[in-house]
């Protein structure tokens, strides 16, 4: 033992004042990952395919001879590339994802497993219907759950997302007015607090958009609505619970006024999670409402889709639902794919094939798991969690509508930041440093510097308390004048604040070979 060095591994960290930038751009275990185009994979492939005996003689000049410029990666390289990228993302599986209006809830893995059953994931949309009876039956079961939960007589399954569902609803309304010869209705009324998709959809369908004012307590102004309703109004589009996180107390009266004026009531169902299993939109006078399966019914958001936006319809609108329709009779389940027979009045097709089967099965798996009792509990816990956050932050932050309960999201304005020099954006970015994804910011537009927090039923009390304590600590720091913490944030994220102005001024929307490289000029 005598030859052993007496200078061992230091067991106490050195005391160093400064934090140098890394030499490679890495951050701890997070490497700075290049684009696939920068990995020199121009001659590589990660897929083994036998060479084919190519005889393309029929194709002549149609054969592609120029380089396509698509690099390949071997399988281990690909795995590293994507796993490294993944680590730069926040996710609901990591922590609370309190984006108001987005309903970021747990995505059960059973649903993923079910979507990959061979009889679900590996069936072609145009196989003979006799070979996909279970798939059509699944659509029929999903339709039954959606109709029962909403108290509505019909549902169009094919819309591919919420905005596509809005389009479906307005097209049905358009068709219903046309069928009555009522073609003078060219305007859709939308509250100022609405999601941007509402006015965008109305304009897409050729309607002019007129705004409905909001009351002091964050709801539709009935007097203003009544004044604006008339023979030119095709529909009203109202979100309920609304984007301020409040239930429209007068919703039944809103429906009555719309109907009395000959208009239809489109309800944006983005916030259905607050009332699922407890309140049926059919009892509120709704004519059409989309349901985001990727919100209320837990199909994963996937970084921006795919979603699904089935639309429930009233008796008045049901005949105009888009094809295909699901029916069943003595000889089994059937997809009616053309606007003939019972579907003769359908306004037509919204997409190729029959919609988002992969989302249908996940949503049905979720609904069956909860059952009617569990879904009611979902709504109650979602609303309870939001009110708990509101109650515990009300002394430090300013709730936009302090009186009365909120539904599944708690809305704050930025009055409480007045005089601090800190904006809603700064506050949100500082949350990132504390390990939390920010809430929805600056929406709805009717509330100054809005911060819209939707915890969903997924959060335990322990997680909520951690989140609340973090926000309280930040709010206290803001009020104490700790401005730099906010202005420069985030400091600890994979990247600091990004220059969005620069991105928009001279858009660079794809990788191109650097000058002087011998790749084909782009």
């Amino acid at each position: 033992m005598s030859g052993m060095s007496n200078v061992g591994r230091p067991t106490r960290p050195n005391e160093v004042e400064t934090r140098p930038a890394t030499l490679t751009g890495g951050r701890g275990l997070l490497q700075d990952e290049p684009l696939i185009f920068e990995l020199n994979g121009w001659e590589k492939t990660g897929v083994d395919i036998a060479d084919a005996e190519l005889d393309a003689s029929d194709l002549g000049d149609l054969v592609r001879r120029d380089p396509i410029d698509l690099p390949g990666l071997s399988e281990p390289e690909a795995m590293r590339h994507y796993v490294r990228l993944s680590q730069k993302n926040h996710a609901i599986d990591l922590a609370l994802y309190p984006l108001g209006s987005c309903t970021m809830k747990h995505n059960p893995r059973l649903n993923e497993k079910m979507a990959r059953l061979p009889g679900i994931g590996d069936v072609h949309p145009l196989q003979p219907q006799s070979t996909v009876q279970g798939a059509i039956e699944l659509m029929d079961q999903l339709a039954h759950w959606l109709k029962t939960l909403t108290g509505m007589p019909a549902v169009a399954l094919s819309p591919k997302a919420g905005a596509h569902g809005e389009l479906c609803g307005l097209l049905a309304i358009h068709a219903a007015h046309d069928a009555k010869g009522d073609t003078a209705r060219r305007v859709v009324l939308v509250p100022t607090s609405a999601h941007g998709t509402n006015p965008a959809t109305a304009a897409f369908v050729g309607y002019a958009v007129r705004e409905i004012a909001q009351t002091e307590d964050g709801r539709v102004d009935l007097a203003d609505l009544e004044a604006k309703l008339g023979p030119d109004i095709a529909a009203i589009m109202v979100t309920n619970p609304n984007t301020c996180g409040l239930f429209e107390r007068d919703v039944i009266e809103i429906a009555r006024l719309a109907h009395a004026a000959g208009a239809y009531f489109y309800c944006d169902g983005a916030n259905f999670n607050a009332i699922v299993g407890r309140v049926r939109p059919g009892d509120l006078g709704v004519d059409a409402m989309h349901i985001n399966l990727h919100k209320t019914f837990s199909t994963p958001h996937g970084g921006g889709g795919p979603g699904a936006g089935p639309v429930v319809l009233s008796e008045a609108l049901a005949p105009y639902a888009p094809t295909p329709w699901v029916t069943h009779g003595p000889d089994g389940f059937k997809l009616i794919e053309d606007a003939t027979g019972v579907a003769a009045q359908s306004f037509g097709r919204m997409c190729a094939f029959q919609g988002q089967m992969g989302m249908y099965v996940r949503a049905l798996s979720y609904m069956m798991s909860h059952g009617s009792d569990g879904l009611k509990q979902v709504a109650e816990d979602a609303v309870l969690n939001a009110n708990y956050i509101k109650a515990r932050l009300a002394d430090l932050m300013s709730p936009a509508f302090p009186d009365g309960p909120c539904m599944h999201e708690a809305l704050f304005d930025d009055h409480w930041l007045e005089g601090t020099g800190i904006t809603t954006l700064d506050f949100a970015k500082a949350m990132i440093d504390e390990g939390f994804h920010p809430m929805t910011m600056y929406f709805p537009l009717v509330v100054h510097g809005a911060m819209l927090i939707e915890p969903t039923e997924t959060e335990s009390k322990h997680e909520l308390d951690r989140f609340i304590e973090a926000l309280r600590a930040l709010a206290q720091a803001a009020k104490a004048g700790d401005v730099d913490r906010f202005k420069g944030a985030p400091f600890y994220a994979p990247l600091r604040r990004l220059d969005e102005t620069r991105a928009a001024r001279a858009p660079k929307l794809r990788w191109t070979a650097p000058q002087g490289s011998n790749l084909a000029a782009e």
Partner: protein
Amino acid sequence: MRYLPLSAEDRAEMLAIIGAKSIDDLFVDVPQAARRSGTVDLPGFKSELEVERALTALSNKNVPAGSVPFFCGAGAYKHHVPATVDHIIQRSEFLTSYTPYQPEIAQGTLQVLFEFQTQVANLTGMEVANASMYDGSTATAEALLMAQRVTKRNKAVFSGGVHPHYVHSAETLAHAAQMKTVALKAAIDAEAAVIDAIDADTACVVVQTPNVFGTATDVSKIAEAAHAAGALLVVVVTEVMSLGLLKAPGAMGADIVAAEGQSIGVGLNFGGPYVGLFAAREKLTRQMPGRLCGETVDADGRRGFVLTLSTREQHIRRDKATSNICTNSGLCALAFNIHMSLLGEKGLRRVAEVNHANARKLKDALSSVKGVEVLTPRFFNEFAVKLSKPAAAVVEALAKKGVLGGVPYSRLDPDAGLDDVLLVAATEVVTDADIETFKTRLSEVLA
């Protein structure tokens, strides 16, 4: 309930802090007439095992494509997707993240979108591509409206080779937007005929290659005619694997490419979710629908990516937006991106060659069957045949014999008078034995 973490004690404690006596106090704003006691009339809570049993029973009533000789196409194709793809898209950080509104903590998704946009642009031979649409058919519908915005004209002309579902979906939207559509009569080699229908009111001409009958066409002449009339050329591609072998639309004068990306990475899924590819000429960028991801730098000057040009979009421009699209097909775009990164140009070209070779083998095999006439003159991996019996009945009979033998054209368009036309596709998953079985069974059915 396994997905709900709050205990009864938690709930009581939280209600006390809120100052509510019961949960009903939080629902006081619901009108009396809409309040309900008890639960809605649906089954109650089920264990994981019970749900799995019920859904597996439904799955078992279907015939999976992978379980039989399989030749269906017509806009949805069965390709082999490497196992790596499905593994990566199930990583929590991709699967359970939202649209990347906070770019500092969404660089994974954003870099994927930037790579995806580059791959789509290069594959289609176009200058810019967006971050995905719902699917190829809705991308086509959006292309019409974009052409209307760009040209300020109100007419779209479809060749007789565009997939009827695409025509119908686009018409639904176009008619609502006060656009007139002219859909030419279905024909095997339909694309060139579209030239005569272009006039001074035409906003865009929509052609498809390979078209719904499988016919591949050089659309350069159509592009010239469209441009001479001040119209845009929209090229639809329903089988993007073809772009590994066939000339890119961008090289033939396309102004907008609307394509279905399902063949790369996504799978059949009974029709959805799929991934719409949308690419265009650079000068049209600001009229494009959907999300665009762009490169920029962060406060320390490090490269990063953000969603950009959002002044086109609904959440900023509301009723003046270029589209109402919000959620798109992000995870399917990731699947496309991974599969394409594994393939690379080398792999893509090879898979495309195998597809073509298999389709030629299928053509040779079916040509020898009595009652079969091959109609498509030039094809990639799919072609149309004329049968001596109605095609719908033939595929039913084939299914009973354990072969999924293609798509009858009448399924897509019952009024075209093409009841005897069958569309058959052969991708890399088809074996020589599958082709032999198909040939034998088809001979029996047509005998």
